[in-house]
């Protein structure tokens, strides 16, 4: 190890910068920590990747033969649902990580530092966006492999992927809030998803809503996850669905504002145990 002299006391002075600067700089430090963890705790990424592969294969080959969607091949219909559903499932990891930090007392340490309080959450969620990008790419790969053929322009496909990433961002915040509110990491893994199952499956993900009974269809038509899937599907299949796209974006924006404010507020009050 290098034999430099110890840092003199008078150099141990925190830098002074505007709060907004620290909100970003601290988030980058926390994000780096999370990114370092990805290869060291590989099972998290592996689970997140295996999940869309299984869903796509299962629906394509097991149920696909029984489900007929007028006008498109089933795999082409399915992919929008698979993208959004995998993004939401992958986001559930955010909360588990937050709950773990709480359990280990790391949140107490972070909160005793003069760092930007929001950075612990935003940093983690930035890093989770990177992981979720990988999940989206893998979903593209498996889809293309089993016959998914998007229509329209690559610009629209990129836009569809970006929308899926935005959805994962929204649900990462939801998951972070669960992680802050529910005491044990194991429970967060369950509860974070359970609330969302009706939205994921009571949607246009795997079957067109017009096969559903009236009451379910009414729910399904208007709930945000369906709208997100419809918007993604429109972009992937060159069947622009402008109302769904707008509504999906408004939902994402609205949910984000509420979830971010609520999470940061709860974080500022939460201590370990």
């Amino acid at each position: 190890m290098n034999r430099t002299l110890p840092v003199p006391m008078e150099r141990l002075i925190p830098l002074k910068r505007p709060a907004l600067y620290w909100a970003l700089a601290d988030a980058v430090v926390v994000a780096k920590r999370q990114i370092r963890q990805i290869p060291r705790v590989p099972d998290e990424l592996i689970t997140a990747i295996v999940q869309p592969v299984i869903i796509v294969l299962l629906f394509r080959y097991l149920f696909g033969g029984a489900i007929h969607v007028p006008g498109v091949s089933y795999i082409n219909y399915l992919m929008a649902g698979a993208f959004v559903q995998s993004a939401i499932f992958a986001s559930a990891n955010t909360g588990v990580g937050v709950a773990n930090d709480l359990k280990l007392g790391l949140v107490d340490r972070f909160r005793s530092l003069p760092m930007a309080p929001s950075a612990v959450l935003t940093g983690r969620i930035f890093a989770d966006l990177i992981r979720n990008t990988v999940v989206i790419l893998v979903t593209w790969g498996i889809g293309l492999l089993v016959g998914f053929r998007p229509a329209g322009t690559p610009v629209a496909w990129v836009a569809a992927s970006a929308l899926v990433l935005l959805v994962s961002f929204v649900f990462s915040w939801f998951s972070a809030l669960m992680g802050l509110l529910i005491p044990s990491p194991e429970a967060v893994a369950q509860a974070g998803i359970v609330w969302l199952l009706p939205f994921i499956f009571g949607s246009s993900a795997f079957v067109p809503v017009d096969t559903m009974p009236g009451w379910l269809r009414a729910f399904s038509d208007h709930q945000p996850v369906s709208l997100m899937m419809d918007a993604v599907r429109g972009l992937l299949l060159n069947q622009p669905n402008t109302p769904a796209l707008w509504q999906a974006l408004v939902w994402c924006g609205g949910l984000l504002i509420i979830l971010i404010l609520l999470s940061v507020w709860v974080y500022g009050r939460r201590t370990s145990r």
Partner: protein
Amino acid sequence: MSIPPAILAEGVQKSYGKTRALAGLDLVAEAGSVLGVLGPNGAGKSTAVRIFTTLLAPDSGRVEVAGLDVTRRAAEVRTRIGLAGQYAAVDETLTGYENLVMFGQLYHLPGAIAKRRAHDLLERLDLVEAAGRLVKTYSGGMRRRLDLAASLILAPQILFLDEPTTGLDPRGRLAMWALIQELARTGTTIFLTTQYLEEADQLARQIAVIDRGRVIAKGSADELKAQIGGERLEFTLAPGSDLNSALEALRPYQSGEVQVDAAERRVAVPVTQGAQRLAAMVRDLDAAQIALADLSLRRPTLDDVFLALTGHTATETKSETNEVDKPAEPQFATRRPA
């Protein structure tokens, strides 16, 4: 202008729902001193630490750290304190070095300084060899040292240590004590909580005994010991000797309440001027035909203080729902003569 106390708490109250964790806590730690806060499980030690370190807002009362109000000037307080909580709060999936650099950056040190400081602290806390290993592979003692290192990054004026040796083996405990003593020598104010009476005695000039969220006694270790007066003559009766005649024989020397553990046939009698009168006491026991299995004269321990103050020993776990003060039962601090 006089120097404000490093830590000042007045009438601090905090409840978690129905549980009253702090019920009007008053504490003062002078700058540069070591304040030991001694209390059993659930006494409110960690709650106090969390309030002083800005993690938790008190329900009422005044708390100042480094002369700054902890609720209104939390950000400034955070640059002046270090916290090593009850459980080592370090990231398991990073190496020791990575942990310290990360915390240094989050203390807003320039990157290069954060790295150099990490090296300094790893050396100081004897973690150089483990620096590149994931914390997952560390022993409990190493984690504790790394956690302490993280709390020392800014060389804080005031250090909060919540049960710093709980869970350490005797060697780890001694090493931690040496570190704390060295920090105290260099002028750091240390707020230390502990369940170990011996630890408070070793490390802290001033001790506050807390129970159920309140300070029930304070002073130096010697002052606390003086509160229950004199030394104690402790002995175990040999089979066949009569307990009552033994107590009768010692009555003239007795200066306080006698503790008897009937099952073990052990007796502790508070006495004054014990050393001078030891020979006389033994002679009187002998004259009363009392045979002893062992005998010792010892100064009271803080365990005795605790027993005298609260009716239960410090190490005894007490149920959290136990609201009513039970009268002191004649129970015995289980401590063998040294």
